[in-house]
């Protein structure tokens, strides 16, 4: 079974900071650039010959090194990633590009800059309003970053290279979209846990290898029927979620996740970037900046709600399970506001807060069971 093989490969790949695909890339002389968030365009790294690697805390068994620098009131996702970096377990990175995505990551940036000291440290000041009036600033920031990467790595990021990078990442986006389209079926050929494994893997593997694995997988999944025993279809929403085991704990209760509107889920890929004409960097910038906004952004909550409701409709979901990391302020505000908006729209909504690297506990399972019963499922 191709599916079993691919999923096993990907589960292994996302379980630790390093994976065999990444090692192959490094062993063949490739360089790797770490980053935290999808507002930082991977295409720039790819065009510079660097493999984009989204920072995670996978494989971190404790956050003590991060805890030495950050209070326990900083989210565990950040403390684990910082711990890995401080312990040297991310030393395969040839550079990092960070941004003020949130207060926690902003301080992680300070620690990378002052303590981890990667050979290249880039920082983007990303506006928090997805509107035309500040888009120019974002574009300027990307131009500055591009120039800094060119200077540091002695490469020229030509328009041709940018177009090739767009094509490569669009291939991924198309495959992810195809994968998600299959989940609209009555009997989706894969679970949310499996889909999340795939989308997370896409963030930590060389993209050509990922796309190639996806081709075989999609071919097999097109005729497969698997998930029939579920009690309800749900959308998993919220902030960072790169732990498929947590989602499995939810799905084991009968709540099948049919789309993950989370960081590391489809939201991190978005729709394909339109082909030319026009400056490729500008097309990339527009794609990233005006993609489905996350909670860090303001003046766009109506769009966020519409996108969620449209996705529910498209995937015929019965409810929303919202999850956020403890101490995450942006998603605390949006969690509150989503609850009341969805209540107005009579959409069943369950809110869970969690810690990084902690599987769905008995309490979470009980709450999911109660949620399903409340929905009459």
């Amino acid at each position: 079974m191709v599916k079993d093989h691919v999923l096993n490969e990907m589960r292994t790949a996302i379980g630790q900071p390093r994976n065999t695909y990444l090692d192959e890339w490094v062993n063949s002389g490739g360089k790797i650039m770490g980053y935290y968030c999808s507002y930082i365009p991977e295409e720039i790294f790819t065009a510079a010959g660097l493999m984009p690697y989204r920072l995670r805390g996978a494989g971190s068994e404790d956050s003590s090194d991060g805890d030495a620098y950050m209070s326990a009131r900083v989210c565990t996702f950040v403390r684990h990633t910082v711990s890995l970096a401080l312990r040297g377990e991310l030393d395969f990175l040839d550079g990092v590009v960070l941004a003020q995505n949130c207060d926690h990551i902003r301080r992680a940036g300070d620690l990378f800059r002052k303590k981890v000291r990667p050979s290249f440290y880039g920082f983007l000041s990303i506006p928090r309003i997805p509107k035309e009036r500040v888009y120019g600033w974002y574009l300027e920031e990307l131009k500055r970053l591009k120039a800094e990467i060119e200077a540091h790595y002695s490469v020229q990021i030509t328009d041709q290279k940018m177009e090739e990078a767009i094509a490569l990442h669009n291939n991924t986006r198309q495959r992810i979209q195809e994968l998600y389209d299959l989940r609209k079926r009555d009997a989706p050929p894969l679970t949310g846990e499996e889909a999340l494994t795939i989308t997370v893997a896409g963030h930590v593997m060389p993209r050509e290898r990922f796309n190639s694995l996806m081709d075989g997988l999609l071919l097999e999944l097109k005729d497969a029927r698997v998930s029939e025993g579920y009690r309800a279809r749900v959308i998993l929403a919220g902030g960072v979620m790169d732990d498929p085991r947590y989602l499995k704990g939810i799905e084991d209760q009968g709540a099948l996740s049919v789309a993950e509107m989370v960081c590391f889920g489809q939201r991190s890929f978005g729709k394909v970037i339109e082909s030319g004409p026009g400056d490729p960097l500008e097309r990339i910038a527009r794609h990233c900046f005006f993609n489905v906004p996350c909670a860090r952004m303001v003046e766009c909550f109506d769009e966020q709600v519409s996108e969620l409701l449209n996705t529910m409709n498209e995937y015929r979901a019965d409810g929303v399970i919202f999850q956020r990391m403890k101490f995450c302020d942006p998603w605390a505000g949006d969690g509150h506001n989503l609850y009341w908006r969805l209540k107005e729209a009579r959409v069943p909504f369950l809110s869970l807060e969690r810690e990084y690297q902690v599987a769905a506990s008995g309490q979470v399972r009980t709450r999911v069971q109660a949620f399903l019963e409340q929905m009459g499922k």
Partner: protein
Amino acid sequence: MAILGKERQEDWEVVYEGVNGLMELYTEDPDSKGMNAILKGFGKFTEDLFGAVDAGRPVVWHNCGCSPELIKGLEGVQSMPIEVLPVLQDLVGDVNYTMALIDEAEAHGLAPEVCSIDKAAVGSALKNLYPAPVAMLCHNTPCDSQIAAIKTVAELTRKPVRMMDVPYLYGDREVRYLAAQMREAIPFLEEHIGKRFDWDRFKAVCEESNRTAEYLRDWNELRRHMPCPQVSKIVALVTALLVAFSGEAEGTAIARAFRDEAKERIERGESAVEGGETYRAVWYQDPVWWDLQFYDWMESELKLVIPMDLFGYYSPETLIDTSTPESMLEGLAAKSLRAMPMSRQFKGPIDNFVDDYIRLCDDYQADFGIFAGHVACKHGLGGIGLFREASREAGIPLLYFEFDMFDPRVTPVESIQAEISHFVDDVVKPRKEAG
């Protein structure tokens, strides 16, 4: 609208009575010019706010990261910080009302780890304690919790919000970027207020803002004096002054009173601490606003004075150039980025946050530093390791504890007192005695 007059809502009545009661207490004290002035300002703010409601004048809400001069460029508009009620309640009213507002927001589903002042602002909106705004003008600073609160309040009121994006750094490019957004916000204000922006009026507002800044600059200098001439509890009130009164004569009057009081007391050779100060500390991060008498305790029991803190420090480099509309907008943007307490230190890289602390310890000849970690300030607590290292490298003993600036239930005053007492006895005193 729920509020038609100040006497019709108990929460405001408590604040109003508190202000008047304290004014009676302090008026007779010739050494309390500064405190008298700010109390008078609080009273006037309350009267102005409800006066605007009674007169049918538009109210524009803003957040504490947004200095209100731009709003004041339109005649007849009342600006109102969304944090105002719980701030006043903690400072001059009854903290139990703040706690009730915090609980209200949490009961409505806002996560407990959101900042208490932001929860209390949401609670105030939930309880309809604020006059309805025509619009909200905000800055996305100083922290994520503020942004969460703004989004939540906007959602509750469904009123139009204009957010200005405050970038990461502080340079001239950043100033121009923010100034351009301010210019673009003017039509937004005009549309929702129904009046034209008045550049002459804005110029007068900016000039007033500069006058306030100049008094604060002088006052910052005077507070360096040894012994410190003025009480500790007054220092952090500068932030309340700037957020509520920037661009108003009231703000200048308060700043002048702060300055005059310090100057006169120095001339008379008076110390903030009766019997003379023994220790000086720079208080960093957030003040204890639910019990101002706590500062009296530090002075009387420990002979410890706080000559300066993060909320009181006003960076001297920023005055608004009022020669052209563009220079005024850029000046206001520079003030927002580089001078407003919290926005200056909290929003960017750790360097400003740490460098200001080290400089203050040096300038104010502090024996040690107190990092009072407000539990919701994730940026501050996220930088505590680097902060400690910097303090150690500079040879400044640092006391760190966590508490909540607006909610005494998190760490009671007795615990904070014990932390400080032990640190003074065990670390500062032996060090000082050893020379």
